């Protein structure tokens, strides 16, 4: 293999699981100081390719890799790290019981006199957090952080690796614009020092801002490669999904002015004070957005509404009937459901099949009279995953799906409950453009069918593109509700950081 440069050279990378070809003959070059964006649909093989490079997964025979002019064949993540290649994984991998500092320096503890130097560790972690704009003590336990904050910790960990090549697999999936900007500053700083990046994301706008080159995968094969980032998004979408997606956001008619109020929330407050005085109404057929920067408390609010966390005060009414919320079961009985943000911890049982996962939410439907019908369970699941375009079969374990497909399964299992009120928390986290359009279409369908839909998202375009009205939150308070006409990005951000 002749390497014309000093970076990473991949030739003929293949990976098969059983008889499924996840990667087929991928070639990739990453030069020093260069950022290559890796695009592709859910399940295209981006994470698998990243894992191969980082030594987590062994490629099939015939794959050749070179790094900094030498043959490179990592047998374990330790080998990759030793060679200066670091990965932040798409699914966050942090230890909830340990502090932020320790999570960042796990496996590379700074030592002094044979002892782990805790002071240095905390200090260096603190500096890195500062750079990313995360204002928390490095001595806090990671388990107490929000998803977004955890993602920032993960980024901080990657940035302190002192790696020469960093693979970032959807680092911004849970982040807002503010945090994304901070990340990019750091990326630019490191690039200037000659660090290379492989950057995986479904956010095309980001790619345009940061990429030097773009490589697109489809079904495990490299289908397009662009030597600059100024590629029209429509072109990229076509590369990824093999067809054009003309309209991302569907049109959803505003609810009639006399449409009944389906969800009324009054004076909610959390026992720990993370939010209070939250009141709003959502009409039947209306899409109601919740915007705010990371840590604003949106997830907490919707968790409380869905009965997941206890409330200190406040009432929740569905169709005019007050719901007594002691558990999620109460909310579900009142036809109010929440599609949670953390699919791994809250969404699916990874080792169990898709059909089982869907059945767990819908036991009353697949087990009439309490008796489970295996055939019915399978066909029920089949219908749902077809509707959402999940790449997989009902009998497949959820853990063997790509991240985006798992997210679709999570949505599918809640769709089937035919609720009156559905709350989506970060519904498109890690979802590709094509699937994203499909999910937006589902949202629209639900609204058209007269459901009240609440959408929480850190993707401002998403909230603005879908919602009839947007409530902006900051520090656990309602900063104001904007109608679609009033809701510009500038106005929302103004309220969000107020």
């Amino acid at each position, binding site marked *: 293999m002749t390497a014309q440069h000093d970076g990473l050279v991949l030739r003929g990378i293949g990976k098969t*699981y*059983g*008889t*499924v070809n996840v990667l087929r003959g991928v070639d990739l070059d990453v030069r020093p100081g260069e950022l290559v964006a890796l695009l592709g649909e859910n399940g295209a093989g981006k994470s698998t390719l990243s894992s191969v490079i980082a030594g987590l997964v062994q490629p099939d025979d015939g794959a050749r890799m070179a790094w900094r002019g030498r043959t490179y064949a990592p047998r374990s993540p330790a080998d990759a790290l030793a060679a200066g290649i670091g990965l932040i994984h798409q699914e966050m991998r942090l230890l909830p019981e340990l502090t932020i500092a320790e999570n960042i320096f796990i496996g590379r503890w700074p030592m002094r006199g044979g002892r782990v130097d805790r002071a240095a560790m905390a200090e260096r972690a603190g500096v890195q957090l500062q750079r990313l704009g995360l204002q928390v003590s490095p001595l806090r336990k990671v388990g107490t952080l929000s998803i977004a904050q955890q993602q920032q910790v993960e980024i901080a960990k990657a940035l302190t690796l002192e790696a020469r090549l960093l693979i970032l697999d959807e680092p911004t999936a849970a982040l807002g614009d503010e945090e994304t900007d901070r990340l990019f500053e750091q990326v630019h700083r490191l690039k200037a020092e000659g660090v290379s990046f492989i950057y995986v994301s479904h956010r095309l706008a980001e790619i345009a801002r940061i990429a030097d080159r773009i490589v697109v995968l489809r079904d495990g094969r490299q289908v397009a490669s662009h030597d600059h980032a100024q590629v029209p998004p429509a072109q990229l979408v076509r590369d990824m999904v093999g067809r054009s997606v003309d309209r991302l956001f569907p049109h959803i008619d505003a609810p009639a002015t006399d449409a009944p109020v389906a969800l009324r929330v009054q004076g909610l407050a959390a026992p720990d004070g993370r939010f209070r005085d939250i009141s709003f109404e959502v009409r039947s057929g209306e899409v109601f957005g919740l915007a705010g920067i990371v840590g604003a408390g949106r997830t907490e609010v919707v968790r409380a509404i*869905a009965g*997941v966390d206890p409330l200190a005060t406040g009432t929740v009414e569905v169709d005019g009937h007050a719901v007594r919320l002691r*558990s*999620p*079961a109460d*909310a*579900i*009985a009142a036809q109010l459901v*929440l599609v*949670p943000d953390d699919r791994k*911890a*809250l*969404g*699916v*049982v*990874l*080792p*169990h*099949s898709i*059909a*089982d996962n869907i*059945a*767990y*939410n819908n*036991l*009353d439907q697949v*087990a009439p009279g*309490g*008796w*489970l019908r*295996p055939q019915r369970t399978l066909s029920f699941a089949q219908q749902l995953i077809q509707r959402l375009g999940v790449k997989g*079969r009902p*009998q*497949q*374990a959820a*853990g*063997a799906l790509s991240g985006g497909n798992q997210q679709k399964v999570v949505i599918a*299992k809640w769709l089937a409950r035919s609720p009156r009120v559905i709350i989506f928390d970060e519904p498109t986290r890690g979802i590709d453009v094509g699937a994203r359009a499909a999910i937006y279409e589902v949202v629209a369908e639900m609204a058209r069918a007269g459901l009240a839909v609440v959408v929480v998202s850190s993707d401002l375009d998403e909230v603005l593109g879908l919602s009839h009205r947007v409530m902006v939150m900051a520090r656990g308070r309602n900063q104001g509700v904007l109608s679609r006409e009033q809701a510009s990005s500038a106005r929302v951000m103004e309220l969000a950081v107020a």
Partner: protein
Amino acid sequence: MSTASSHSTSPDGLAPVATSVNPVSGFAWRDHLIGHVPAISLVVLCLGFALATDTFWSIRNLLNVIDQLTVLGIMALGMTAVIVTGGIDLSVGSVLALSMMVMGWLSNVMGLPMPLAMMAALIVGLACGLGSGLLITRANLPPFIATLATMSIGRGLANMVTDGTQIVGYPDWFSALSINRHMGFLSVTVLLFILLTIAASLFMTYRAAGRSLYAIGGSAEVARLAGIPVKRVTLWTYGVCGMLAGLAGVVMSTRLDSSQPSGGLGYELDTIAAVVIGGASLSGGVGTIWGTLMGVLTIGVLRNGLNLMGVSPFVQQIVIGAVIVLAVALDANKRKV
């Protein structure tokens, strides 16, 4: 025995080929075999003993084996449910002892009619199980610790009932329950065990409540968000496990024709081993009644066969340890073989 559920590690009791993580293998027969590791281990074991001794392979001895494992088997049914929810119950041996002591005390000391005393044994077992369940669901104790405490307290109480002495003198019909083999082979206790196994298998595979055990074991938080009343289901799982331990105590009493406060000492580990040999995972979400039956039979056949071969007791301990390792290792590594 049970046609209802027929596959080991697949939590849904559907065809194991279908739930394979590996979507297309091409070797259908291999995949099929792989789904039955516990059953295959058992068959190999039986063949071995049949060749090694001339007494193993006889109707009479196989009936003995089944007879011998009723106590363990009944406890293992409840333990399967507990383990599938991701828990563990160390108290079954003690609960068994307490239940049989209370039964004996009520009937032979307090003069209660035997059937009522037998009911009381079940209730005592249920109460112990619910006690553990409350500690787990309300006081947030890890199951290992909650049931370790119940184990210690239960054994203490069992001993206190009669200050450590055994209770003898049950009516003849009582001991006949496990001794009289109707139709030449079915004693009442064996019949009871068979019926319970079938019922448990149907429950775990086809009842919505049974399926929710798998959801809870897979991830309690996912199950809770799905609207499953996790705490209630968990509580009753331990309750039922305790009640079955109580029933096992009654069965043990009929077999011994007496109640012993030291009865069932150390049975918790045997029971757990049986369930795990049957393919269940201690991290929860995986396991079937069919698999457990295989595990219970494996332990029963092993003990019986080693006795028939006249293997010395110390060597038996070594062989049993080795077989547990082999059976579980085969199951754990079946995809890699």
